[in-house]
């Protein structure tokens, strides 16, 4: 499905709707350039998952963990990684085993890291604040 949002707030709201029905163990691979709204989308996901947390960019830390809801949210950023091997180095499989939702920004940087059952979300900048967001796979949006 393709969605069009017109502000950061709308992107965040879409993320919240998207995350409401995500099952434990879901891997969400996010693709898109700088400033496309990926972090805003994940902030919405946290809200949709009932997590009361300040979601900030994980670029520096590679992964931020949010717990306290029904299931945890692991917010990854592959911006500083050079390949799938480095994702395994930081314990990717351990995170998968923890029954949470993994949202992965800059999935472009880790080709081949996922096994084909990931949900793909693509962000495209169609204006200064307009974004086209394509979601492939996953549950129907409420």
């Amino acid at each position, binding site marked *: 499905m393709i969605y069009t949002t017109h502000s950061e707030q709308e992107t965040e709201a879409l993320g919240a709707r998207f995350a409401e029905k995500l099952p434990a163990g879901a891997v969400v691979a996010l693709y898109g350039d700088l400033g496309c709204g990926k972090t*805003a989308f994940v902030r919405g996901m946290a809200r949709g998952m009932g997590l009361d947390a300040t979601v900030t*960019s994980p*670029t*520096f830390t590679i992964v931020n*963990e949010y717990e306290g809801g029904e299931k945890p949210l692991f917010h990854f950023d592959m911006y500083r990684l*050079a390949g799938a091997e480095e994702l395994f*180095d930081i314990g990717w499989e351990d995170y998968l085993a923890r029954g949470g939702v993994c949202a992965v920004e800059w999935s472009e940087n880790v080709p081949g890291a996922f096994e084909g059952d990931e949900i793909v979300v693509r962000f495209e900048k169609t204006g*200064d604040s307009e974004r086209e967001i394509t979601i492939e796979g996953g549950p129907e949006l409420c």
Partner: protein
Amino acid sequence: MLILSVESSCDETAVALVEDGRKVLTDEIFSQVALHKLYGGVVPEIAARSHLEVVTLLADRALRTAGKTRAHIDAVACTYAPGLIGAVLVGVNFAKSAALALGVPLIPVHHIRGHIAANYLAYPELEPPFLCLAISGGNTMLVDVRDYTDMSILGQTRDDAAGECFDKSARVMGLGYPGGKPIDDLSKQGDDHAYDLPRPAVHGDNPFDMSFSGLKTAVVNIAHHAQQTDEALDKAGLAASLCRAVSESLVGRTMDAAKMLGCQNIAVAGGVAANSRIRADFEAACKEAGKTLFVPPLRLCGDNAAMIGAQGYYEYLAGHTAGADLNAYATMEL
């Protein structure tokens, strides 16, 4: 009291020896930059493995450099949160083993508290209470430091850290990584009113919260527009306008917070404190308001273990030690 301290929460592996929280005997940092140069390519910079490979070597070197032996160590301190879990675990487990083997106390230290404590190393006269702005590639927060181990966050970024905004803006402008220094250098030749950049609007009711994501997006848009229309991008002007925008949102909020708290001393911590515009604006604002400004030298602004040894001393005095069941945490309240 001699503390052996370890920091491994992200890219840097560091070990230091600090006496009584204020005097640094040695401060060893394993720099990945050297590794990059050595191999001429990208190395898995954040792998816990690389921390593990160097941490014991660094500890031995720290003792040698300081002319000390293991018997001189009175306690071992380590960063236990927050950070990349696999990386933090290496430092925690090294510290646990060392404390157990030496029969000395183990002191867990919060990474951001360490950054704040870097000021104690640079300024022997500084004592709480003070207000601290911690600004780096990973954090941007205003902290009310009431006492050495009693502090709370007044406000923080809702999205990107200030340093990340510089890094990512530098990337779209074709400058190097990390982006803070090249943007700072370039900004000195530019007009800080060349581009009209947004002042990050923060939704919500906390006046001390900040946002830098919109600013980053604005810079990306300006760079892309220039590319698409073949117009020359005034890089120096953009760099200067960006520094001004970041500085205004940091300095304004910090001065407001200082006024609200009625505190005399304002400290800045973290790598972004090296930005000359931010430094100059803080100096001017503090002078005008009659406040005293503390900004540690760059070496102490980035991740290092000396700051962990400094804060570790005060945590020890407050009775904050841990047993062999100490764990590492990816996230942790200040």
